[in-house]
């Protein structure tokens, strides 16, 4: 019971923290939309072309905007010592990683999920594809959060090469993109593709607490 309370109030803390920096989340979304505008302007007014590559654009931009904010994943809590305090309050590093991952999903990815319909209107994506896009991104974004947790915990002590974290997330997200884009192109295989995406999510989710937990401990140990 006490453990459950700790989890609930961990999220209370995350909520307060994210709401105080709500402009950061909004900036992410603005980045997403401005990039869509840029794409539309640079491709030209041809609606056919835009709707053809629209899904790809949405995916690329979602990936980019969620990796650009990766540095905040653990960095603040690591530098001001909160990570240590949370651990001393009786949460193992693995559990902290899981909790943080869900928090990132809730406060960074879900706003994107909500803004996808608007992006679809801008990019002329057919309405019947919206459902597939939303389900695939719903699963894939949690996977991205797990990958983000792994990569940003690895790069806590990396003071030189900030982009490396994004590259790590992007290279491991290749299979996710392949499957989620083929969901939209091959609607008849919907169930089996969703199952594969879900399988990838489960694997990454299982690796996440171990890899991130180890990296967090390591970085705190040598800070």
């Amino acid at each position, binding site marked *: 019971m*006490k*453990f459950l309370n700790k989890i609930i109030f961990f999220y209370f803390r995350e909520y307060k923290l994210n709401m105080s920096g709500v402009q950061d989340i909004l900036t992410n979304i603005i980045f997403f939309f401005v990039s869509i505008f840029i794409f539309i302007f640079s491709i030209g007014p041809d609606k056919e072309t835009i709707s053809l590559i629209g899904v790809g654009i949405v995916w690329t931009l979602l990936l980019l905007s969620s990796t650009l904010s990766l540095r905040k994943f653990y960095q603040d809590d690591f530098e001001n010592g909160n990570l240590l305090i949370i651990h001393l309050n*009786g*949460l*193992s590093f*693995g*559990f902290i990683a899981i909790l943080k991952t869900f928090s990132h999903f809730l406060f960074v990815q879900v706003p994107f999920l909500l803004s996808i319909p608007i992006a679809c209107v801008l990019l002329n994506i057919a309405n019947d594809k919206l459902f597939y896009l939303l389900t695939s991104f719903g699963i894939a974004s949690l996977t991205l959060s797990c990958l983000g947790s792994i990569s940003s915990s690895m790069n806590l002590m990396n003071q030189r090469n900030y982009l490396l974290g994004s590259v790590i997330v992007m290279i491991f997200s290749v299979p996710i993109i*392949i*499957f989620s884009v*083929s969901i939209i192109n091959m609607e008849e*295989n919907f169930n*089996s*593709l969703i*199952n*594969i995406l*879900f*399988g*990838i*999510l*489960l*694997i990454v*989710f*299982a690796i996440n*607490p*171990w890899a991130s937990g180890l990296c967090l401990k390591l970085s705190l140990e040598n800070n």
Partner: protein
Amino acid sequence: MSLRFQRLLLIMLTLVIILSAVLLILYNARENVSYFYTPSEIDKSEITINKIIRIGGFVENDSFNKISSSKFKFRITDEKASILVTFNGILPDLFREGQGAVIEGAFVDNDIFNATNVFAKHDENYMPASIKEDLKGTGYWNKKYK
């Protein structure tokens, strides 16, 4: 919940999750990451005109027609179904009748597939050219070697 118990819980959770994930993927991954479709996988009734896809199979024997120096017509088959393909361009060296090939392009109508790219596909068998003659001579040539 003590830290050791959390660890134990995490280990159990990980094992269960990994197991179910592997099962999920193995059950579903087979047909989905294909680089190409085979002709019999293409449902004639559901062809989308002008949608770019890839089809892989063998070039059907006695189907290759040279229309002009860079225009070709042939059929791609997997011994269950076959598709008529037209191609305008340069064919790879390995391309010949009976050879595996992957073509990229789109259906222009329900029967004709217009290829924009043709890739030859070779198999995993390697054998000196002279031996092929010997095998053919003695009748041991396996038809499977394409």
